């Protein structure tokens, strides 16, 4: 017994070192599996607050770009206004009949809300985006984040006033995507090499693919509404060993100048995910 104490005392520093290393590795391992860090929401709250201070200052530098994006989006919305459309002739007046819409069978599935980006990384292997809305504003895990030009990521962590989204530029990010032209569905990933270039896998070679084609979110995604812009195909490669394309996709979103994004809530998210999980476990 005495020897044990003696051993501990003599090697106190080494034992401390080993202990701290083990703690670090456990944290890292646990985080890469669950994306839940120790003291998570407390740390989120603090780093979020500091990030917000910084973003209040740095936001001035990207104002021009943000203005352009908002103006473009406004234009798109203005073009959808009722006043833009005219009935073909006075004798065929189109009337929107509210009774035609059966309110019991048409329910809202997606709802968007606005959030500001207060923290954003692009240089790491796993990049994240911090937003200034949290559980107090109704943000939940699994909500998707969409920018004015294209999708950004998925919420993985929420504290009271901040939330953290896994950006598309993350090694663990997998998003179901489809080609706009022929609706072939594949999966979008990031290989960690170049910012703004993603990899689209599992598109069969029978699909017609050309450089510049749009890639959209698919109908199978639980987080994203179908048909949101992801990017455009930049290079077409064949994987000789399989029957699939490996496509390089340039993101529509410019991750360097992210400032305002929309949070998309899927009201059927829990239901769909639980059903899929229950089926897997059977």
């Amino acid at each position: 017994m005495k020897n044990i104490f003696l051993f501990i005392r003599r090697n106190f520093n080494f034992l401390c070192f080993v202990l701290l290393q083990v703690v670090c590795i456990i944290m890292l391992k646990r985080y890469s599996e669950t994306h839940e860090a120790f003291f998570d929401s407390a740390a989120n709250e603090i780093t979020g607050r500091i990030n917000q201070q910084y973003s209040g200052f740095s936001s001035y530098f990207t104002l021009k770009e943000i203005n352009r994006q908002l103006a473009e989006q406004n234009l798109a919305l203005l073009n959808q206004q009722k006043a833009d459309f005219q009935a073909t002739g006075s004798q065929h007046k189109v009337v929107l009949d509210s009774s035609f819409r059966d309110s019991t069978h048409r329910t809202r599935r997606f709802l968007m809300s606005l959030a500001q980006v207060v923290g954003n990384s692009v240089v790491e292997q796993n990049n994240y985006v911090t937003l200034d809305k949290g559980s107090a504003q109704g943000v939940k895990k699994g909500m998707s984040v969409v920018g004015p030009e294209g999708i950004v990521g998925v919420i993985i962590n929420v504290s009271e006033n901040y939330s953290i989204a896994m950006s598309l530029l993350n090694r663990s990010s997998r998003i179901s995507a489809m080609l706009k032209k022929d609706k072939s569905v594949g999966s979008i990933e990031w290989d960690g090499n170049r910012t703004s270039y993603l990899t689209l896998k599992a598109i069969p070679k029978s699909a017609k693919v050309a450089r510049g084609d749009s890639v959209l979110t698919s109908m199978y995604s639980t987080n994203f509404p179908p048909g949101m812009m992801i990017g455009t195909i930049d290079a077409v490669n064949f994987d000789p060993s399989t029957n699939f394309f490996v496509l390089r996709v340039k993101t529509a979103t410019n991750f360097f100048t992210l400032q305002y994004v929309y949070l998309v809530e899927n009201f059927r998210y829990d239901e769909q995910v639980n059903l899929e999980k229950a089926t897997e476990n059977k």
Partner: protein
Amino acid sequence: MSRLLINIIRFILFILVQVFVLNKIPPLHQFIIPYLYFLFILWLPFTINRFLLLLAGFLLGLTLDYFTQTPGLHAACCTLIAYLRPFLLNLLLPQDAREQSYAEPSIRSMGWAPYSLYIVLLTAIHHIYLVLIEWLQFGDVWYFLGKITGTTAISLLLIFVTEMLFFRKARFRTNAM
């Protein structure tokens, strides 16, 4: 100002510079993230208790980790260099120099060659361990070697610039902390 206060201010400054300046720089190349924050550990006084040194390293790494959303990654590397620092200093400092009363490692207190060796070795160890952990997660040899070389070179350049810009007055050891 007391040593403790100076070191607390340094801690905060290094973290802020790392998170809001160096990590925000648009990547020059896929390999390079300019790291400077660990210089805090290298600049801690000679006399610091080894356990406190370990703890300071762990805290520094963990603080950065909470900003970069990688809990444990930088903390592991910082504890490693904090653990190795006393051994390296013992090797590099000539026996009689320890009698001299400089407070912390610097060019003047250690001399050009030993100080450069000290910086280069610990920087390299920090980056090798950092990239090794990332590599174990993702795996790619060329990525591993390239990233170590790239990041180490840029870090050394940054440290050199920092040393030139912020000339630390050679403080002498006192009984006060």
